[in-house]
């Protein structure tokens, strides 16, 4: 009960900090001081108090989409366990709901982008759905591998399997899956090398270009939702990368937070040392992610 409470608190409060860590790491590499760690919190407060400018072309979808997307991501976050703890909501088949909740977010984000009737946002929406089609099988191959290892259909048990099985775990498969899921996480949360959240060259962006017309609290919800999505996917990946637990509650929570911040700094390092891929090369990366996870599955079925 208390763990579920902490889960929800962390889920709602921690995500903007990850963005702060990423930006700090990038600033460190660039020799700058960088924005404060808590910059996104300040931004969210500022945006919440602002008025909105809405395009005359738009319908109710435009303003409803950020809210629906955020709700879907929060619910998805309730299904992914953090560290060695149970997720607040566990049932057989919750991994499918997790994947499809992200789909709900995608449906409304892209619909809202197209609602403005702008070619830029149409371009972003088109890229978003195209890349999702290529990266989605990676997630399901990863889920198949985890279901096979754990013998369970619950996301919590599936993700805890590498930890509970320990040395018996099929390491080769898990490594392949970890690589695939890592690429998937970068894609879904719109980070380098797939997308660059800092660029202002609209023709090359995916997520940022879809939300060009949102302002004020609407933009705030979108930024918050994006950081939540990064957080949830990071939490998912951590189970495969760091299958360890101390054994008692408080150190485990602290370990989890430390791992999350470490992952954020890893993302920051990647963004500092890598350039964004050309748009026409992104599908190759996503297919590579699918192949990584697919080979992980094949390897597992062979033995």
């Amino acid at each position: 009960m208390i763990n579920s409470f902490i889960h929800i608190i962390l889920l709602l409060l921690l995500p903007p900090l990850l963005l702060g860590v990423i930006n700090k790491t990038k600033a460190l590499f660039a020799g700058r001081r960088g924005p404060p760690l808590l910059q996104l919190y300040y931004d969210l407060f500022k945006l919440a108090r602002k008025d909105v400018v809405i395009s005359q072309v738009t319908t109710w979808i435009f303003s409803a989409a950020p809210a629906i997307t955020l709700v879907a991501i929060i619910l998805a976050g309730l299904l992914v366990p953090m560290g060695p703890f149970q997720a607040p909501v566990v049932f057989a088949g919750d991994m499918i709901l997790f994947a499809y909740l992200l789909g709900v977010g995608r449906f409304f984000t892209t619909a809202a982008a197209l609602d403005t009737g702008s070619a830029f946002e149409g371009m972003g929406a088109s890229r978003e759905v195209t890349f999702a089609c290529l990266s989605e099988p990676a997630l399901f191959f990863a889920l198949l591998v985890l279901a096979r290892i754990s013998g369970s259909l619950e996301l919590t048990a599936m993700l805890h399997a590498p930890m509970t099985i320990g040395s018996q775990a099929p390491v080769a498969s898990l490594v392949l899956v970890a690589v695939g899921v890592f690429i998937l996480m970068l894609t879904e949360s719109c980070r380098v090398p797939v997308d660059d959240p800092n660029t202002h060259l609209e023709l090359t962006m995916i997520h940022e270009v879809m939300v060009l017309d949102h302002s004020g609290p609407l933009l705030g919800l979108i930024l918050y939702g994006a950081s939540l999505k990064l957080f949830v996917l990071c939490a998912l990946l951590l189970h495969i990368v760091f299958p360890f637990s101390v054994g008692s509650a408080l150190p485990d929570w602290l370990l989890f937070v430390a791992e999350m911040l470490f992952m954020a700094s890893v993302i920051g390092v990647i963004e500092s040392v890598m350039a964004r891929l050309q748009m026409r090369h992104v599908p190759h990366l996503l297919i590579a992610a699918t192949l990584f996870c697919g080979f992980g599955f094949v390897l597992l079925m062979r033995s």
Partner: protein
Amino acid sequence: MHFPLSITLLLVAAALHALSGVPGLLLSRCTAAGQRIALALTCVASFLGLVGVALVFMQGTASATLPWYLIGSEPMLLTADGLNAFFLVPVLIVGALGAVYGLGYWPQGAHPGNGRGLRLFWGLVLAGIIILLLARHSVLFLMGWELMALSAFFLVCTEHHLPEVRRAGWVYLVATHTGTLALFALLALLYWVTGSFVLRPLAVDEAGLGTLFLLFVLALLGFGMKAGMMPLHFWLPAAHANAPSHVSALLSGVMLKVGLYGLIRFIGFLPEPPVSWGIVILVAGCIGGVLGIVFAIGQQDLKRLLAYSSVENIGIMLIGFGLAMIGRSQDRPVWIILGLAGCLLHIWNHALFKPLLFFCAGSVIHATGTRQLDSMGGVAARLPRTAIFFMIGAVAICGLPPLNGFVSELIIYLGLFHGVADAKASAWTVAALAAPVLAVIGTLALACFVNAYATVFLGQPRQPQASAGHEAAPSMLLAMSTLAGGCVLIGVLPWLAMPMINQAVQAWDTAVQLRPPVAVGTLLPLPAFMGMGLLLAVASLLMVSWLSRRIKGGNASHRITWSCGFSLPTVRMQYTATSFVQMLNGLSQGVLRTRMHRPRISGLFAEPSRFKTRQDEPVLDRYILPAFLSICAFFGRIRFLQRGLTHQYLLYVGVTVILLLGWTLPVETIFKRLFAR
């Protein structure tokens, strides 16, 4: 002779449906009375039929015999069990709602020429389907089948003054008769095996392996053709696109499922299926699902898009059924139950959201006068309710929570994952590879329907005619809202459908396996799942209402779309449907092969030119038509024999007679006598 009430009610429903269009034929073609009578009869018939179905679900299987001896000495056997009762529900509901929709969409006053015929054949299709679903006698089954198939031909050809409608109807007629040919062979073979016209499960040693295989292939051909199973779907897009929208809804929502019913029922009759059958069905489902939605994305015509998405959904149903078949040959009850339950629930779901989408498409086409996606835009401003209904249908068909499409896909996923998670089942876990395929189908469907919804309803009108039009008539909105309500209801409260699914699965399962029944509900995480669905719906609504109050409370300003500082955006600068899917289409050109007409630009002052793309039906236009044309060309060479000249035919008769006489002549004796020494 005993006649159970449920069967009586269903037969009365069939008769009333069949007669519903007749009074209109006797009345003047200018009065609306015929349409009202037909509507009333259809609604009464559907209501009586639904009561009958409810009785079947409550009291169990009912059988009756009609004392007709058309052929042989066996009376016509009718049986209503859980499985056909399950299929009857969408038939009756969509049949009635389509008639309600037709009141506003195809009023007799506006269509004096073809309205009466449409309603006659509407009723006949429904009557045919009810008869064939109940029939357990080969001849009665075929009679119902042909009544349905031929009436559907007349429905497709409602606007037969248009050449493309006639072409679509012709292709449909050829396809459906090819399918019927396979069914004749199937039923004849069954008669040869069992020595009886009664349709019943075969005993284990009743037929040899080769016969069983032949039966399976014939069922796959005959019923697959009707169900629109890839690659037998080639008749479907044109037929669905060129029929009036409520007819498309009936064909897509109901008639395709009848093909699936035949497949499930007849393959259920065959004992001890090898695992390869299940794999074949599963693979056919995967291919149909992916290619169906890939073709749907490539379409520029709204109704063709919806038609191809039916092919995709049939693919999803076949994945479920294939899993059930694999489970049957591997003796895994969980696979059978989850696979078949997912397949059956998806049949209901598709019968809710596909007619809904076709109804919405109909009112959009009614308002804008075009089916081309790239001509539309901003329709939501004038058809706000239709826009909401279309959105509900689009979210549901993408399989997104909390609507009904997600529930059935979740059940199929659970079945697929069960195979992987079960450590003992090392063989045939390849079936689990259908899970990533299903995920790809889901995301592609999302791309397809975001595109359809946004291009039609959002943004600005791309052509002047898209800015005309008005909201749909009340009767049309009533039909749409009922279907949308069904989507929400099954999505949020799936346990309502579970008892019916249970009975349908058991009707199939006990017939083939004879083991204690397992309830579907016990295998599903229904409470937690419903809780999450409700939470998603309620939290979204609260959040949206808070936001809208926040926006209205503050002083929101309305400006033009920002477009990165471009101050005078025109409607021509919007992303079109074609440009939205350009990247995806580029990835799928290997199968899609869009025909492009690129202008050649040369010289300093280039001439004005046009860029055109055209999307063929790949199977029909690239394989079947060329094949038929070459056959035609071959027969063209011997056409000179048949010139229509009477004296030529008389010559043929004379020559034939002489040849036959010559055959009987004792040539040898004649020669011997002539040249005797």
